[in-house]
Each structure stands twice: as structure tokens, then as C-alpha cells.
């Protein structure tokens, strides 16, 4: 039923017991699925606001983008591509784990989830190594707002991924305690959805951080800054 027809109802007419209404037993994990949608909306708003402030801040003279000139760290973005590949592998492993969970094949599920977790942790470690590398090159947090945004956005993204790993661990523990069942695929599907969502968020962060000044200025102009 569309939102408009719901809001158009005249509830004072026709008193009767409508046997409609979401039912936790009819749709398992319906509540968790709804909550996940809201979580993804909230995280999207959070990153959207960071992006908007990034674009606004980029229009001040002290802002020096991290790509564009040969001496800027992300003019050669191969390190970031490598990290992206790690996160993509994690998403892929997650998807494979989910597929096996739907078929209720335990070894496949365990290896899928195991690899998803390992690649996610590797991604975090690689991000941390990148931090150290930039720091050693003299790109300190406070020396330029573009640097500040690099550390800030990667940190916030990393924290959300750590939250995802914790949620996955919780789901997996419950699964192992209660033994394999096809229903397990549903909460695992929610984890996978969050994983893919964070991958998309990372792609946007990646694109923004490696943009050249001309691109950033064009985006900022589109936003009216």
C-alpha cells in the first residue's frame, strides 16, 4: 500500500478488526531489516554532511587537494586501489558465504564469513598503514584541511566497518550456538547488505579524496559554494 493511500484512510469509518499488520513470526527479522534501513539512512546522512562540509571547506585558500600535482600523495592512487580491492574481496566473500547459507552448507558459510572478516581486517590494517605512510611524508592532520578530511573520513568509515565486524561476530556466534538453519541466511543477508553499503560509501570517500582541484571546485560550484 502506498504512503498516500495509507495517509488517505478514514479511520473513523468502518470499525473492524483488520487482520493486517506486520507479524514478527510471518516475516522473520522484519524488525531487524527495518532497523538496518534506518541505520543505513543515518550513516548516509552522516557521510553526506561530511562531504558537504568538505566541498564547502575546499573553497578556502588554505585548502590543498591531495591529488593533482606530482608531489601530492594521491596523484598516484594505486595504494588506495589496493585497499579498495581488499574491501571488494571482503564483500565478495560475504556474498559467497550468504549464498552457501541459503543452501545451508556449513563449510561454505564458515569459509565465506571467515574470508570476509579477514579481508575486512586487512583493509583496516592497510588503511592504518596508509595513515602512517602519509604521516611520515609530512602530511599531518592539522597542516592542511584536505589532510584533516583524509584522516577523519577514513577513521569514521573504519569505525563503521568495525561495528559491522562486531555485528557479524554476534550473528555468527548465535548461529553456531543454535546450529545451522536456512533462517540464518536472513540475518546474514542483513550483514551482507551493510557490508555492500559500506563498500559504496568507501567508493565515494575514495573518489572525493583522490579528486583533483578542478573536480572538487566543479562539485563545490554545483552545491553553490
Amino acid at each position, binding site marked *: 500500500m502506498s504512503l498516500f493511500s495509507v495517509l488517505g484512510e478514514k479511520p473513523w469509518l468502518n470499525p473492524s478488526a483488520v487482520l493486517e499488520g506486520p507479524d514478527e513470526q510471518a516475516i522473520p527479522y522484519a524488525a531487524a531489516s527495518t532497523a538496518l534501513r534506518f541505520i543505513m*539512512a543515518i550513516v548516509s546522512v552522516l557521510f553526506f554532511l561530511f562531504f558537504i562540509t568538505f566541498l564547502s571547506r575546499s573553497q578556502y585558500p588554505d585548502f590543498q587537494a591531495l591529488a593533482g600535482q606530482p608531489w601530492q600523495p594521491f596523484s598516484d592512487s594505486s595504494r588506495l586501489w589496493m585497499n579498495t580491492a581488499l574491501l571488494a574481496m571482503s564483500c565478495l566473500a560475504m556474498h559467497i558465504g550468504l549464498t552457501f547459507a541459503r543452501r545451508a552448507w556449513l563449510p561454505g558459510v564458515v569459509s565465506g564469513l571467515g574470508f570476509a572478516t579477514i579481508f575486512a581486517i586487512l583493509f583496516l590494517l592497510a588503511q592504518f598503514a596508509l595513515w602512517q605512510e602519509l604521516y611520515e611524508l609530512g602530511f599531518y592532520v592539522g597542516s592542511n584541511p584536505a589532510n*584533516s578530511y583524509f584522516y*577523519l573520513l577514513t577513521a569514521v568509515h573504519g569505525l563503521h566497518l568495525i561495528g559491522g565486524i562486531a555485528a557479524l561476530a554476534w550473528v555468527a556466534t548465535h548461529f553456531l550456538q543454535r546450529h545451522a538453519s536456512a533462517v540464518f541466511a536472513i540475518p546474514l543477508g542483513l550483514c551482507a547488505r551493510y557490508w555492500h553499503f559500506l563498500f559504496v560509501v568507501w567508493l565515494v570517500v575514495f573518489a572525493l579524496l583522490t579528486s583533483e582541484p578542478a573536480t572538487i571546485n566543479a562539485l563545490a560550484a554545483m552545491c553553490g559554494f
Partner: protein
Amino acid sequence: MQHIALADQTLEMHEPKSFVTRYIWSQDHKVIAIQYGLTAIFVGLVALVLSGLMRLQLGFPDTFDFIDPSAYLQFVTMHGMIMVIYLLTALLLGGFGNYLIPLMVGARDMVFPYMNMLSYWVYLLSVIVLLASFFVPGGPTGAGWTLYPPQAILQGTPGYDWGIILMLVSLAIFIVAFTMGGLNYVTTVLQARTHGMTLMRMPLTIWGIFTATILGLLAFPALLVSAIMMLLDKTIGTSFFMPALVSLGESLDYTGGSPVLFQHLFWFFGHPEVYIVALPAFGMVSDVLATHARKNIFGYRMMVWAIVAIGGLSFVVWAHHMYVSGMHPAFGFFFATTTLIIAVPTAIKVYNWVLTLWRGNIHLTVPMLFAIGFIFTFTHGGLTGLFLGNVTIDLPLSDTYFVVAHFHMVMGVSPIMVLFAAIYHWYPLITGYNLHVGLGKAHFWLTFLGTYAIYLPMHYLGFLGVPRRYFAMGSTDFIPESAQSLNASITVSALIVGLSQLIFLVNIFWSLRRKEAAGHNPWGATSLEWQTEHVPPHHGNWGPELPRVYHWAYDYSVPGSEHDFIPQNHPISDAEGTASEEDKA
């Protein structure tokens, strides 16, 4: 453990038996609601005392040695932040949202009870961190509740080192707590309504809380973003908001950030926050008015649409708080227009409340008095908002008492009137006991007339140009001496109103001791929370089976019915069903 077999769940309901699981680490939404409520009221009383101290200084300057300019600014800041975030938001959503949502939609509890419990304890942590700032070197921040950089984190502002850090950390913790609670509220409304409880059969209280929670979930990230970025500016020397500047003759390391960017972020949260507080109040007052006027709410659908429309519009008006920051005239025009448009659904709501009372069977109970009082205070506060929404009128009035009077009427006094209406209305359900009516009426009249004695003259001071946030006026030519007499009278009224809240506290605790049983559904209300088997409702809310809903929430004084109200879960006879089918045809 007591085991109850439930028809709607495969698992049995485990009722907690030990004191700790029942009252401290409780996952029951009703206990969590009371925990939220008591914490919010406690911290609100701290803020009330701070406002009393501010008024003492303003009414009788040079009298109180312990209030110096720094302390005054700290009182202003902490009073504002506590009242808006830690009292109103927490009590309306954490308190009443928690208590009423599962009961009103016919659920056994929130859908994620553990997360709900965590939400309260994280909220308590944020309150403790906030209050800790009173005890750190330099005291709490005195940056004003808007915490504008650059001054908020620079030397010269009270609490610029520890106070501001604790404030920002506390806000971040609060947002985490709110998000955990908020996810519960929206998901419970969407996924755990009982059979027959369609969205449009929900009481307006739930519509208000539901929409406000969505606003909160989407607006608080803006405050989180600004808190994180300012914290980094303060602690590790980034320049997100801090411009290149010289402070006390010394050039600072900041490289040229944008303070106005902070203002945009802050108000992108700050304006929806007004409606995060107002929408639950709109909902609750609608239910109190309909119940005590024994009449269906006028224009139910219009009321729902107005709540949704106000929620949507609240995201596109934020810069009307920033006219004096300087902006392109086209933006000023845009934000003034959206601000005035939001008055349309708001006015519809006010008309509908008045039309609900029209020819109703009005019972002047204590909750009804507060609800009617709200219509007055909200109308006055709302009308001055129309003045301030216009750029040309806002510019001269912006930094005066007129603004203080406006926002206190519209989002201080008005939601508090509704909170009192709600507490007097639902206290018999929450505790099972009656409150004393005489004390309640005394509390109402002192509060209602007292707040008018405070804020009505304040508008005139604003017209005179008396500036807000000033510790003392000194000798200012354009302000006549009589303004000081008015200021003194405002202080006396404020102290009387502050003290009269003791009547309320005495009533609450004395009624708990007196134990005069309220009985089942004392107001004759239709909504589900009053139809529980036990008063107050037990753990799990309902007996073995969930209630089944047949009616909307406002079947009052229906011609031909036995009583002057039909509970939502009152089964319909075949004849009724056929008749209504015919009506519809």
C-alpha cells in the same frame, strides 16, 4: 522466574524477579521510561536552578558576589543545553516515547529491548559527563548553547579548555544513546503494531513521537559532525571551523577555517530539534484534549498530515537562525518564505485543537488545564515567530530579549505545559495512583500565570533593544531606567514559578505515599494503553493474548453507544459492522 505462555510468541516471557534485573538493568520499556524520566527531571531541576541564578543577576545586579560574568555565561550555556537536549528531548522521546509506544500500538515491549536498556545507560553517561564539567578546572563552557566557534574554544571564553571538551563529548555520547533509542521507537511503530492497529488508527501521540524520532535520527548526525570536527579543532589543531586569527596578541596555528560552516551544521540540527521537541508535544496534547473534552479530535487526517508536513519542512528553514551572520538576500528570501510556509500546517493544528474543544463536554481536570494553557502559550510563541521569520524584522530584534521571550514561549513553556499535562494524565496509569487535584490546580495556575508574568514583559524589553546574553546593562542611553524595574519583576516572577514546581514534586511523592488507587481507565480514554489487564501494566503489558483493535483512537460520545467512549479494542457486534458498511456506502 514466572512463566507466561503467550499466543503471539513461541518463546515464553521471562519476568525478571530480582531487584537488579527488574529496576536497574531492566529491559522493560516501562522501567526504562521511568529511568529516563527521573534522570531528565533531575537534570532539568539543575537547569532550573541555573536559570534562577541568571535571573537573580539580571534582576538585582551588583548584589550577588558569587555571580561574576564568567559564571553568568556558564549558567546561560548549561541552562540552554540541558533544557533543550537533556531534559526535553530525553523526557519526551526517551521517557514518554518509551512508555507509550509499545502500550499504544499494542506491543509487548520495544522490538530491541536490550538496545533500549543500553540507550538509557548511555544517556546517563552523557549526563554524568556533562555534569562533570561543573567540577573541572575552569568550570563548564560559557560559549552559549550554540557553542559557536571560534570563541567557544579560545582563551577568554569560560571553560575554553576542559568545559567545552566535556560538552562536545557529552553531546556525542547523547547522540549515540538517542540513536539506539530512536531505532527502537521507529521500528516498533512500523513492525510491532498489533492486529487491526493500522497506521491511521494510531493515536496522534504516536504519530508525533514517530515523526519526531525520524527527524532526530536524521538531524542529530549534523550535531555529531559539528561536535567531532570542533573537538578535533580544539584537541589536535585541525582548522575545520577555526579561521586564521590572532588571540591575545599571539598568532594561532589555525589556517583559515569557516565559523559559518559550523553555524550551518548546528542549525541544520538545531531547527529540526525544535520540532523534535514540539511534535511529540503536539501529539500528546491532542490526545489529552480529545479525552478530556469527550470529543473526537477535529480533523484527524489533517492533524497527521500536518505533523508529517511540519517534519519535512523543518529541514529547509534552518538558516532563519542565521540572518545576522550575513547571507545572500536570495537565501534570506528563501528561508523567510519556507519559515512562513511552516506556519500553515502549524496553524491548522491550533485551529483543530480549538475546534476539538468547540461544543465538547469539557472536563476541567488538571491535565486539561495544562493542555488549554498550552494552546495559549503556543499561539503567543508561534505568532512572535512569524515576526522573527522575516529578515527585516529579525535583524534589529535578533540580539534582544524579544528572541529570548519568543523561543521560551514556543519551545520552553509550551512543551513543558504539555509535559505536565502528560504527567498528570498518565500518572494514574504509570503508578496506579491518583494525584491530588487541588495541588495540581495550584501548580497549574502559578505556572501558567507566572510564565506570562515572565515572558510577556520580556517582549517589551526586546522592543526597547535590551540585549540578550549580557551580564549587566551598565549605563546604556537608549534603555530607560524603568527597564530595570521590569527586569526585577521578571526575576521575582521567575523565582515564584521556579519555587511553585516544588508543589508538583510534593504532589508526585505525596501521592505515591498516599496510595489513593486510580482504578482502571479513570479518564474513560479509548486508546490501548488504558485497556491493559493490570494497572500499572505488568511486564509484557498484555495477558496471554495481544489486544485486537477494531476502532480508531477517538470514538468519544458516539451516538447510541452505551458509554461516552469506545475503547479501540472493543469488539464490534455484527449490527455495528453492517451499519458502518452502509455509512461508508
